[in-house]
């Protein structure tokens, strides 16, 4: 692994953290075109050349024409380039339904201690609420892949005791067999939640803090959660991005910063510690969810 970077932003750090989780020769169903896509592409370039990914529009194992510029959309020739098979939403959904997808990588709005995901509504769905776009492909990813990796921000409004609306299933009420009792495939479920500040895994289907970024403290992480997660015996300090990772990310994967510009910059200080800094590049016009 190359030298640690001395300047990066927290979104870049999050993407690199997920990229290093990618197992070689495993299949990934990747939601949308933002951080999940950047993570898998980074992984295949650096660590897991035989990791395979598919997208919701039925692309199997492409060698995409990078950068996916300027719109990181599906149903496009650059993102579909040199795939092994072009299918449809239905075909790729069935591939996942028969168990071919090892991991899903997702974004979300809200998550709870059992890994349930809300992307539909904040507030009281039956009454006063703010409406969002719905699960899209995330419900199928969360239901059908063997494991899911959730990417979100470390904010108290995102980590809530009970999501306002379960758009995509985690461990539901957290009881054993809860997923199976509603017809979901046996042995599936949430696996990791990765934020710019922390990594969580699950213990008995409950979210557990297992790693923290070196530029924040455990208490800072917990302060940005509306419930107390379980704690790993030893909470690890997460690795920060390398120069190689960032070079790839910035020059090939996200040239215009459409994904990464939403993160706060971090610097490696002379004393070996990290600190946030305020300056930030101007944001682009495109929504970060692309």
């Amino acid at each position, binding site marked *: 692994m190359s030298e640690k970077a001395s300047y990066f932003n927290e979104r870049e750090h999050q993407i690199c953290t997920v990229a290093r989780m990618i197992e070689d020769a495993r299949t990934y169903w990747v939601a949308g075109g933002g951080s999940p896509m950047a993570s898998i592409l980074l992984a295949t370039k650096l660590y897991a050349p035989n990791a395979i990914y598919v997208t919701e529009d039925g692309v199997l194992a492409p060698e995409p024409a990078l950068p996916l510029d300027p719109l990181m959309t599906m*149903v496009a020739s650059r993102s579909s380039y040199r795939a092994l098979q072009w299918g*449809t939403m239905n075909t790729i959904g069935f591939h996942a339904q028969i168990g071919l997808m090892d991991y899903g990588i997702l974004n979300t709005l809200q998550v709870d201690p059992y890994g349930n995901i809300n992307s539909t509504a904040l507030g009281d769905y039956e009454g006063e609420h703010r409406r969002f776009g719905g699960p899209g492909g995330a419900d199928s990813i969360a239901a059908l892949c063997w494991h899911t990796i959730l990417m979100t921000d470390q904010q108290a409004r995102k980590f809530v005791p009970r999501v306002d609306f379960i758009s995509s299933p985690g461990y539901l009420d957290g009881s054993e067999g809860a997923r199976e009792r509603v017809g979901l495939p046996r042995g599936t479920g949430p696996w990791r939640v990765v934020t710019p500040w922390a990594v969580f895994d699950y213990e008995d289907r409950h979210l557990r803090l297992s790693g923290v970024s070196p530029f924040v403290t455990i208490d800072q992480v917990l302060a940005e959660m509306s419930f107390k997660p379980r704690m790993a015996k030893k909470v690890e300090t997460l690795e920060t991005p390398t120069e190689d990772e960032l070079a790839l990310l910035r020059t090939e994967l996200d040239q215009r910063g459409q994904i990464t510009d939403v993160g706060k910059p971090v610097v490696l200080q002379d004393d070996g510690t990290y600190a946030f800094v305020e300056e930030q590049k101007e944001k682009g016009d495109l929504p970060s969810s692309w």
Partner: protein
Amino acid sequence: MTSLDVLAEGRGEYLKVDPDGFRDWVRENKSRALVPKLMSEKEAVEKLVSDGDYLWYECNYLQRGPASLIREMIRQKKKDLWVGAKFTWVTAALLVGGGCVSKLDVGFFLFGPTVEQAIREGRVTAYEYSNVVMTNRIMAGAMGLPFMPVRSFGGTDGFTHSGAKLINDPYTGEPITIVPALNPDVALIHVHQADVFGNARIFGTGISHQEAAMASKKVIVSTEEIIETDEIRRDPGRTTIPYYVVDAVVHAPFGAYPGEMQGHYTSDVPHVIEIVASTLRGLIPQYLDKYVYGVSSQAEMLDKLVGANRLKEIQGRATIKEGYRA
């Protein structure tokens, strides 16, 4: 006689399930003869889209969708549509902003004030699904079935606000979710090539275009190119949609604009930024004034608001051709 339990059921309204009624429609209305079906966007939408229809479109306004048909539908002020809003980005917002919609079956749409407000004010009712559950529903419709089992969706709050049911599978005894088949009144599908009868080819990935064509009572195909039927017959493995389910063929060059048509042209980025920003900022009416009500047709929009240079530019940027020709 044994019994199966229905363990749970959603309370969302769903389009009436009626496979025999759909068969009757197909029998009476789908021409088996090879008759030319060429018409303009205007004529196709006038003739085949009615107020109150359940509307399905393949892909969407930004991704190889029937964008010219969607604009025409808004221009004709169609009302009270029930929209299959899966994989939809800005399309739902455009249709809601145009006052065309009363119900949405949601898979995903780009949220923004237009749809959000319409739902909050009760002008539009949302029922909750996911993208794949919606494409499974239309696949069941394309197969002539009343319902389809799925292994997702159970346990979500979407389930509660949908037409899904949880039953005990009579084979394994385990719980399984089933969802109602969908046979839309009308489907809009943009393709790469079609002959005048409606035999059509799509290249590249997609959502559920074959299923949509088979499942829908009325099918409008818009196409970048009109090709000879002889060409279809020379490579029948490339036929995506057979003529006998197609009711109208619209020759629509740049029909997916501002979205990309793989192999033909890329998306028009400034336009995409404009419509995405309009959606997020509640400026859909302004967008519609300019691109929909401000012109009378696709041709006029391309000519007056886009221009030959931009069209040439987006064609030129479509450098990847592999796999997009027969």
